């Protein structure tokens, strides 16, 4: 896929921490330094207490599928189809979007337990979710 490879993630000062986390194999969540609430998607201000001070928390990466889609058409640059993507209720307490690898399309369901995994995609650091139970696994 070298013809479709991109040089870097599309990021700026609000999002750099997330991609730096991916480079280290971590799913980093933004955490308000004042009131401690987690937030996603990232942003410079805590919507609860309006503090501009924040830190990060390394997510446990475990969670439950809240909803999902399976992309069939048209072809996706850099991804095989069918391609499932889910909104996951992370056990840390925030929702996060991510692709789901290692599951047959007809096995994916709302309520499925998943865990984050890390690797490379199109030459860039990436993460995705994979089923926790072996019975849900594509190989199983």
């Amino acid at each position, binding site marked *: 896929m070298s013809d479709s490879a991109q040089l870097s993630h*599309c990021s*700026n000062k*609000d999002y750099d921490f997330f991609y730096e986390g991916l480079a280290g194999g971590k799913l980093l969540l933004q955490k308000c330094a004042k009131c401690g609430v987690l937030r996603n998607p990232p942003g410079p201000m805590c*919507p609860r207490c309006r503090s501009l001070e924040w830190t990060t928390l390394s997510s446990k990466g475990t969670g439950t599928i809240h*909803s999902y889609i399976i*992309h069939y*058409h*048209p072809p996706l640059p850099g*991804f095989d189809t069918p391609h499932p993507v889910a909104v996951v209720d992370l056990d840390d307490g925030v929702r996060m979007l991510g692709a789901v690898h290692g599951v047959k399309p007809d096995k994916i369901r709302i309520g499925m337990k998943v865990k984050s995994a890390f690797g490379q995609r199109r030459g860039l650091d990436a993460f995705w979710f994979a089923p926790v139970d072996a019975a849900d696994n594509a190989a199983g």
Partner: protein
Amino acid sequence: MDGLKDRAAIVGIGATEFSKNSGRSELQLALESTTAALADAGLAPEDVDGIATYTMDNNPEVEVIRNLGGKGLKFFSRAPYGGGGACAPILHAAMAVATGVANVVVCYRALNERSEYRFGRPQAYQSRTTDGVLHYYQTALHGFMTPAAWVGMGMRRYMHQTGTTADDFANVAISARKHASTNPKAIFYGRPLSRDEYMASRMVVDPFRLFDCCQESDGSVALVITSAERAKHLKQKPALIRAAALSSPEGLVSLADYYTDDIALHDETHFLATQMYAMGRLTPKDIQAAIIYDHFGPIVMPTLEALGFCKRGEAKDFIKNGNIEVGGAMPVNTNGGLVGEGYIHGMNGIAEAVRQVRGTAANQVANVRNVVVTAASGFPTSGLILAAA
């Protein structure tokens, strides 16, 4: 709250044909529909002193007015959020004419969305702006890159909450195509859809099959808005703007609104409906037809619930037995909708609502007093209630 109620009216509508390849520029399409809408109203290009459209439209206001041979423009505005903003230019226009900022405002949407570019192709945001980094984080990073995927995520949750199935989706598609089949302007004119054809159509993004998805089309629609007072003296029966509203409920994230408690595509339309009914001093019982932005047909179900035509989770039963067709309790998308008539980014639905108020629609509903129009859900959205005087 009712400051804008019945202060302005849509007095002219115009359109090109809806096709898969217009064979001419988007600017020409905008000029053709605008000229037709002004002629319909009995007004001239020289009368136009305001223009309102979408941020996504590629035709600058000043190029349209210059080519039209118009006079000076005193008002121009653009509404963001794509199809979510579809009704917003009419709100802007109504505010402009109600306050005397402008006298005659044209709204247009012109696009070669099939022949020159297609919204259904994977979209990869690469600009490092506030918008760009957010969209990349939620879309290209995960291979989550088409409108069918973005809207499908909320729809899957809706199905989980309500027990709605593909068989219910089919009912929506069949009703829309029935209306399209008797609308000579529709891309699917003369082509109703059977349940077997629906079920056999390929999966685009599960849960959406091909016939759930709106058309990708070329064409243009234009509308002319002036004050209710002036409308009394023009050529057509006016469609009064009884209510107009914008809606972005608390915590909404555009394109990927998955972070609030309920992601099942109700909240944005509910917040919209609350505003519109209050402004128009109306209840759902006062509405005779609904034009719902069916970028994906099944969205009709949560939208009917959010508009108050049935209770949450009951739309799958409400839509059965032709109940959303002409003659049913709440006729929906009598032109065939974006899935059946064509996709002019929602502007063609507003024109259909005007025809219903006038009594000139191809599939006319009897005794229309108020028609509700919604824009895209899954995004910040907008809406109108158009009314007979």
